[in-house]
């Protein structure tokens, strides 16, 4: 039997789904829904207009939290990276803050911002800020000295130097860092919504479980989280593939 190449992964997914359904059918009274139940759950959400509302709520928080972190962390990181003493001063502190799970900030976020969108946005901001700062610092650090010297050699003014050497040289690394960090933002928003607000996909999951064990909606929420996360990742990857960003230092 020869299957066309594009069909094989689809078939694999279909087999997994079928196994899942069969496993559920054989254990009636199970809380966990099968794929059909999940599909019905998603339809249910659509009909009540909750799907769009929650997706938009989550994306809204991610956009603000991630956007603010990018606007603050990248310029700061580039500046610190360029001035070696700045990097030396900031590095240990950033390294200490980075492994603190953004969720551990929840008590402080609620203390400062109450149970609100602002708290969730703050958590996402914290979760993205430190990784982005590190990415920007190391991106500057990794510019080969030849580029810098060549730029100086041509007598560029500082602003021309930033726009024509520094910026293009750090872009590829920054884009990779941005993609990974957006993944973190998506992870944090779900967790934050489970604890500190009452809308969004994370809230959907906790709420569906607490209010009546609607596990079909729980898994529907997970599927949506996966699908949107995948789309965000693909969008960032396509940005990385844009021609003028495409080179990278490691290519020699």
């Amino acid at each position, binding site marked *: 039997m020869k299957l066309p190449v594009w069909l094989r992964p689809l078939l694999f997914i279909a087999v997994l789904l079928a196994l899942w359904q069969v496993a559920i059918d054989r254990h009636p009274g199970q809380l966990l829904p099968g794929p059909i139940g999940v599909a019905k759950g998603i339809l249910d959400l659509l009909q009540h207009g909750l799907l769009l509302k929650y997706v938009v709520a989550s994306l809204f928080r991610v956009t603000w939290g991630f956007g603010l972190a990018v606007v603050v962390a990248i310029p700061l990181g580039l500046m610190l990276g*360029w001035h070696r003493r700045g990097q030396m001063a900031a590095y240990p502190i950033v*390294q200490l803050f980075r492994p*603190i*799970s953004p*969720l*551990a900030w929840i008590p402080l976020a609620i203390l400062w911002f109450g149970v609100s969108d602002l708290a969730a946005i703050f958590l996402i901001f914290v979760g993205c800020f430190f990784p982005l700062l590190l990415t920007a610092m190391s991106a500057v*650090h*990794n510019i080969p000295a030849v580029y810098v010297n060549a730029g100086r050699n041509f007598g560029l003014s500082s602003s021309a130097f930033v726009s024509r050497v520094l910026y293009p040289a750090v872009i590829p690394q920054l884009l990779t860092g941005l993609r990974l960090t957006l993944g973190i933002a998506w992870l944090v928003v779900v*967790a934050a919504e489970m604890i500190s607000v009452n809308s969004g996909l994370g809230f959907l999951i906790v709420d569906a479980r607490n209010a009546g064990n609607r596990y079909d909606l729980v898994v529907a929420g997970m599927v949506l*989280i996966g699908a949107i996360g995948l789309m965000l990742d693909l969008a960032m990857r396509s940005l990385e593939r844009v021609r003028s960003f495409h080179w990278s230092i490691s290519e020699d």
Partner: protein
Amino acid sequence: MNSVAKPRRWEAFFWPAIAAAVLLAVWHYSVVLTGTKIFPSPTNVKTGVIELLHKNVLWADIGDSLRRVAVGFGAAVLVGIPVGLWLGWSAKANQVVNPTLQILRPISPIAWIPVAIIFFGVGDRAAIFLIFLASFFPIVLACVSGVSSVSPVLRSAGCNFGLSSTQLLRRVIFPAALPQILVGVRVALGIAWLVVVAAEMIAVDSGLGYLVIDSRNSGKRYDLVVAAMLMIGIIGLVLDFSVRRVERIKSVRWGFRNAS
């Protein structure tokens, strides 16, 4: 690459010390000036840490968190590396399985919490399952991309000396992909540390994450909250540092651009 003359040796300690002092001063004076009774000053946090140490709560919680990470992350390494090597090695298998991985990967490990609770109840095993999930995907994907970027020249060289497939995998492909695999392992360990704290805030009642949320809920002890956060940061730093030490070993160091 730098903008000014090479810093001297003492500056490596001097500037971080200055930065830390400034940070502490800003923190201290903003607590004093705003006159807040809830948010702790650095001194309060220090007392908090000492209190935790004396009550032995801290050590038990640290032990619990570390044990969960060790088991969940260890299992992810043990399962993820062989799976990743296999997928990287066999283009066909990768073609079939990769889309499924890509769909599962972006599901926030936190979102699995309700499902984990169904399977394992509220307890250790649920948390370990979450950590396993969170670290499994980055490790597998790092292996796949590590193996597929092994230079064909090295593969050919290995073949030339009459190696069988398993020998080739063990003696050429694995060591050649190891630097990239280690990066994946380090990233995964970082994620595991983020997730254990989150899982402990929701799904169990011990560990550093529980300490954070419990200190807040039972009596608004924000000094203990910040003390626990500090411990989380320090331990995460130590974990990261120990994987970086492995990256410094000579037989993998060649793969890291900034080393040596």
